C-alpha cells in the first residue's frame, strides 16, 4: 500500500479526475473531501461491506420462498 503523509488542506490526486482533500484532523477523526465524477460510486467501507452482504443474500433467494403479496389497495 502506498502511504502518504498529508496535512489539513493538502490533497491527493488519483488519475485525472479524483481529488481527495484532507479537510480537518481532530483527535482520532479525519474529515476527507472527495471530488470525483458523479457516476463513480464512493462508499464508506462498512457500508460497502454491508451492502455487499445484502446483495449476496438477495442473490441466494429461492423464488419459491417469496410469499404471495395482496394487490395494492386501489387509489393507494
Amino acid at each position, binding site marked *: 500500500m502506498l502511504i502518504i503523509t498529508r496535512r489539513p488542506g493538502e490533497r491527493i490526486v488519483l488519475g485525472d479526475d479524483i481529488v481527495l482533500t484532507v479537510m480537518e484532523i481532530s483527535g482520532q477523526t479525519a474529515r476527507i473531501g472527495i471530488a470525483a465524477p458523479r457516476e463513480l*460510486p464512493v*462508499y464508506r467501507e462498512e457500508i460497502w461491506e*454491508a451492502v*455487499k452482504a445484502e446483495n449476496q443474500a438477495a*442473490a441466494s433467494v429461492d423464488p419459491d420462498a417469496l410469499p404471495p*403479496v395482496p394487490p395494492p389497495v386501489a387509489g393507494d
Partner: protein
Amino acid sequence: MSTTIDSTRFGRIEVAPDSAIVFPHGLVGLDSRTFTLIARAQDDAFVWLHSLEDPALALPLADPRRFFSTFALEPAPTEGAAIYVTVRASERIEEFTANLRAPLVIADGVGQQVINEAPGAELRAPLFAELAAAAAEQAA
C-alpha cells in the same frame, strides 16, 4: 435478435435486446454488469433482476413504495427513474427484509446502486411490517 438465458431458477428465458439494463459499476459484491428485469406474473410484488452474463445470478427486487409508505430517496433520482430495493428472504415472513439503504435506480437502460442518505433508510427494513399492521387493523 433476442438473447436467451438458461436461467438456473426460471429455465429458458427470451430477452428482448432493448430490455437489457447495464450497471456500469455493477452491484456491490456481485460479478455482473448486464441484467434484465423479469416479472413472473403481472402485478407480482416482486421482480427479478437477472444477469445476462451468469445464468445463476438473479435477485428479487421490490418497489419500495408498495411496502414502505414513507420511503424516501436522497439524493433524489432523476425524474422517471424506476426505483427498486433488494429483498432478503427468511424462513419466517417477519424476517424478510428489504435494503432501503442501497436502492437500485434504473433509467433508460442504465442502472446504479446508490446509497440512500434519507433518514431511516435501513439496511434491513422488515418487508412485511406495514402490510401485517394493515391486516391486523382490518381484522380488529
